[in-house]
């Protein structure tokens, strides 16, 4: 059980970032309840016990380090200090390191600027960086562009409760990333029967065949733990961009790459031959219900 006798000291540090993960977490409906289990030492936008000047000195205590943004070893400074060296000070102190977002985890969008030198904190795409060995035992990866606020709160509360978090080989919590984004998508019937969505924003049709949806091979629980407790990209008719994956961002996010009509990338772990046999059979039937509008609104 969570006890109030000692609050872990939480430090949120940014590297090369758009602040997206910071802002995403602010959307958590129970933000302050969650943070009440921690002593906030410093946070980019919330009130903390110490200023950035204090942090730069390297003297602030830290139990839980949240890192946000991509990394480069040199030439990215804050207040005249290399961010990489600042991170090292606090990563060494921390009992837990959370890489919040795809940039901090794998390199993400900012890696596009300088692919040779910019990476995630402990991973460069799926490859381990030199930091990995030192920090692996306390690392939790939370990719996402941005990270879902409830994925971050899940990890924080597990830490506050001193509960072990089961992780996969890229240090992602399996409770959150054991699923694909396809799991729980409201369009699953259309996927099963291979009915294309004819456009974006429609309720009918699956976005995997033409509109670029990466949900069937992207790990994440966006359709299980909804965004803003309300919906998800795929539910509203926008393709999943695969933003939690190590190779994010890919190109042509709104168009499915196909080879003679066959999706170039198969659903996660599904052999191509098995997929094509099922597809051929499913496409052989015309299901009337799926050719109709789900809802007809009064004009």
């Amino acid at each position, binding site marked *: 059980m969570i006890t109030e006798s000692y609050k872990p000291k939480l430090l949120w540090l940014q590297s090369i970032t758009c602040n997206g993960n910071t802002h995403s977490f602010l959307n958590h409906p129970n933000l302050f309840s969650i943070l009440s289990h921690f002593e906030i030492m410093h946070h980019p936008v919330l009130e903390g016990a110490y200023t950035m000047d204090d942090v730069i000195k390297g003297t602030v205590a830290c139990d839980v380090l949240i890192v946000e943004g991509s990394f480069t070893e040199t030439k990215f400074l804050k207040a005249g200090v290399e961010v990489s060296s600042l991170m090292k000070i606090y990563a060494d102190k921390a009992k837990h390191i959370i890489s919040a977002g795809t940039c901090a985890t794998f390199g993400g969008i900012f890696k596009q600027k300088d692919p040779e030198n910019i990476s995630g904190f402990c991973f460069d795409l799926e490859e381990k960086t030199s930091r990995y060995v030192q920090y692996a035992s306390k690392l939790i990866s939370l990719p996402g562009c941005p990270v879902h606020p409830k994925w971050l709160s899940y990890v924080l509360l597990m830490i506050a409760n001193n509960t072990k978090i089961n992780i996969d080989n890229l240090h992602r919590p399996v409770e959150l990333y054991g699923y694909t984004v396809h799991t729980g998508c409201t369009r699953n019937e259309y996927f099963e029967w291979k009915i294309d969505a004819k456009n974006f924003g429609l309720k009918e049709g699956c976005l995997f065949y033409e509109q670029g949806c990466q949900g069937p091979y992207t790990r994440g629980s966006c359709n299980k733990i909804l965004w803003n407790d309300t919906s998800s990209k795929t539910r509203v008719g926008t393709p999943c961009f695969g933003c939690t994956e190590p190779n994010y961002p890919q190109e042509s996010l709104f168009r499915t790459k196909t080879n*003679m009509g*066959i999706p170039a990338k198969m659903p996660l772990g599904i052999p191509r031959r098995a997929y094509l046999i099922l597809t*051929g059979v499913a496409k052989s039937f015309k299901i009337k219900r799926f050719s109709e509008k789900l809802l007809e609104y009064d004009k």
Partner: protein
Amino acid sequence: MKIADKKALKRESIIQTALQLFSSNGFHKTTIPDIAAKLHISVGNVYNYFSSKNILAQEIIKYTSEALGEKIQVVNMSDASAEEKIHEIVMIYFTMSKEKPEMIEYFLRVYLSNRDVFTDGCDGMVCVSGFITEIMIFFDDAVSSGELRNQDFFSAFGLFMGYLGGMVFLKGEDVLPKEIEFYIDDISRNIYNALKAE
């Protein structure tokens, strides 16, 4: 031999016999008693394996599709280039049309000509997926490797298989002046040239 194995053998012998009779005499002119007589078994025994002539006809198209698909799968799993694979597939198709003409004849003269027999149970690609799937995999690999031009599946499929089917049909009509093997190289080249990446 186990009973299950014996039954499987018997089932296959019924399929092969029916395949020959349907292909040579036509679907409607061939009866279950004809098939039973050729196999020296009772009519009732045939019905033990296939509850109707239509169901038998549907099982035969699955059987031929899978037989052809298995051969193309071997080609797909090889390291050959797309051009070489096209040659292999053309050779498989034409060789089968010569050595087991009933297999291809059945597709052309029974399956395509008696659609009413296949509508309920063999909708769309259901009974030919063993073959179609391997052609899909061939195209997918060849486009991924940059050897063939990306396009709609059916425009490529029609060019490839329509061509082969047409040639075997002409062979069946005894119109071709030469043995079908004679055409393998030219037809393979024609297909490759039509489909290759620009």
